[in-house]
């Protein structure tokens, strides 16, 4: 066990875990933030997607000891205008079914729009194909990303 001061969503959380613990479990069991999900544990599904210093990361596959003083952002801490546009588009189209993958989808979609305000279908494929949705809400995910891009355009 070791103590880590994790900066998550602008707050410092003291978590006492083994250094090998994946960031995912430090966030969920340590800091008590449960919006970030576990789906595979092996960087296959994207349910655990968070930002570390603004970069999307599969938190199930990054040991907490590698995070250091980096800024971690989870679904609970999303507040950019891109994120709001994405969330609004998601609700407008009723994208979620079971909803379990959607935190990860929204983290990835928001990251895409941060980099690329007008993504093509191909851009969406590339940015989103690391996020599995077992309910297969993909048609609406795609439509919602286009929708969010439109609203951001003004």
């Amino acid at each position, binding site marked *: 066990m070791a103590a880590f001061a994790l900066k998550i969503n602008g707050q410092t959380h003291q978590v006492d875990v083994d250094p090998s*613990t994946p960031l995912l479990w430090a966030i969920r069991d340590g800091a008590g*933030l*449960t919006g970030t999900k*576990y789906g595979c544990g092996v960087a296959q599904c994207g349910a655990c997607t968070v930002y570390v210093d603004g970069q999307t990361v599969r938190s199930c596959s990054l040991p907490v000891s590698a995070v250091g003083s980096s800024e971690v952002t989870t679904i609970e801490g999303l507040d950019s205008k891109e994120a709001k546009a994405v969330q609004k588009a998601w609700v407008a189209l009723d994208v979620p079914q*079971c909803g379990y993958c959607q*935190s990860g989808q929204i983290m990835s979609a928001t990251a895409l729009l941060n980099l690329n305000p007008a993504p093509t279908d191909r851009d969406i494929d590339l940015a*989103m194909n690391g996020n599995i949705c077992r309910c297969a809400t993909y048609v609406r995910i795609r439509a919602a990303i286009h929708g969010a891009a439109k609203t951001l355009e003004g």
Partner: protein
Amino acid sequence: MTVHDKTIHATALSRRSLLKAGAGLAIGAYIARGGKAFAQAPAPAAYNIAPNTFVIIKPDNTVTVLCKGIEFGQGQFTGMATLVAEELDADWSQMRADHAPSNPVLYKNLLFGVQGTGGSSAVANSYIQMRQVGAAARELLVAAAAETWQVPAAEITVESGVIKHASGKEGRFGEFADKAMQMPVPSDPKLKDPSTFKLIGSEGIVKRLDSADKTDGKALYTLDIHEPDMLTVVIARSPKFGGTVKSFDATAAKAIPGVVDVKQVPTGIAVYAKGFWPAKTGRDALKIVWDDSKAETRGSAQLLSEFRALSKTPGKVVKSEGDFDGSMAKGGRVVEVEYVFPYLAHAPMEPLNGYLKWEGDTAYARYGCQFPTPDHAVIAQTLGIPMEKVKLDVILAGGSFGRRAQQTTHVARELAEVAKAMGPGKPIKLVWTREDDMRGGYYRPYSIHRMRGVVRDGKIEAWSDTIVGQSIMKGSAFEAMTFKDGLDSTSYEGSNEIPYDVANFKCDMHQVDVGVPVLWWRSVGHTHTGYAVEAFVDELLEAAGKDPIEGRLELMGKKPRHAGVLKAVAELADWKKAKVETGRARGVAVVESFNTFVAQIVELSMTDDGPRVHKVWCAVDCGVAVNPDIIRAQMEGGIGFGLGHILYAEQTLDAGRPVAGNFDTYRSLRINEMPEIEVVIVKSTEKPSGVGEPGVPPLGPAVANAMAKLGVGRPRQLPIVPGASA
């Protein structure tokens, strides 16, 4: 036929109760007495743990509908709230939904007789009941307003959540909720004529009630339950089905910081820890010697050869019409094909789990429970306390596809065993890892269909389907309900009743035992029978020189709803006239499951990575369409789910050991593989039927038929792209 289902009619309001907290109006259950099957639910003597309500109207004007089934994506919350809101004349913005707790009397599924979700039954079994609840609440509110205003109730109208009188008086539900509680409950509330529906069948007004919480991380699932002193439990189970623990050494596991204890439980060795990670690493450190003497040790290749040999011999006849053998003997164009279907894991996005706190003489369980009544009973039994001393709350689940409805209640039992082994007073959260989920069995059964038929003079004269498969229900509480003449009807449903007129017909079956636990998987038997029937009819029509749609319609004289969706999808895709791009082809299939009819047309091309499906057109007839957008969403999801599995998914056995352990070896459909989808809902006044499963079965055969059209043949063994890794 009208939308009023004669078998589900209300006779009396059984009870209602006031919720102390929040006051307001609470309306209880209208329990159907129509069918015998529903009338015999056991009524525990002291069943007073649940607030006995379906709808709660609070002073703040919110109307909360308690759903007796679970919301795991299929839209149950929204569907139930729509039915209540329609009859209540509520405004959609005031509607909320939540799960009802486990209560086998009050919240039973009217089609099952126990509380549970499955068989795409949510709307079908609640359509009348939930409307009665809404109508009763409306009558009570009107009566309360009439008394307050001293005007005749008949002069009062309700619209969009506002109660009005011609004198200009008006008010909202919350103002009258308390008073309404004192009014006599109407025994037979009047339901609307469907032609006056405002919300049922509407477009754009009804939005899902759970979308917002599912986009900001607030939605709470079982994995998210945290409590002080709670222990997370991960179990090491036998790598082979039927294996048991011979001996184990937990020294290294216990040395891991955060690991609190290690106990042997009936399903394996349980590691109790402060959090998931120490529990999982603790499990990795266990040294276990397994006893495989009773384990299933056959591999996939061996099963295939055994199943194949059996499929060449006659099985037990399920249905026979005309003279199949005689017709075959007359010669003509004989077609014989074999279809092989793999074991499939459900792999819901949230793996299995559960929360339980046992206090000695009481217990509290909370999880995404799909079958509350049997789970509730087994928890009580395992802990040795009466059922009414166990409270079971249902919460959201991250998908199921059948996996959370266990005919054996094995997860609920394991949850209780784990709590029991630790002793009272310790809250525990049992967590299955993804690998536990994939390798834990309860798969869609492995099966083979051997199809034989003959075409003479452009006509299908004979058809037979010999099925080799494993029973899902054998040995479970559902055996009596689903077995006919010693055979599990869910293994052949769809194969014994084909929608086509064929004079000489036979369906027979070999029901075999394999030591691999199996389970219903989104659309159950239709996952394989739909493929077998629809790929085969296409193949025979091809031999007969017929168009796949025209040819099907010619044989569907007695099946107007099948024909209806087929015509609708042909029109949607412009089947006759559309110019299909070079290198692409289209295929069609139509399957009825759970009284819902779905036809799909697929357009695809071939790539190095197998078929690429570009577009799917889908027509669905599910009776009265309660929530059109949810119906479309379920068709979209069903198509994506069906496609991912037909293309890539299989669980294979290596000397009995399931091989695929995660999404790297059990490939899931991803966004870049998702086709464009267009859905048309066929207008119908038939009673509503489900949509959670019926979108799945036609997709596979439509893909196969398009592949044949493209000249690469219909796949005989699934998945189409075997050995896939992401």
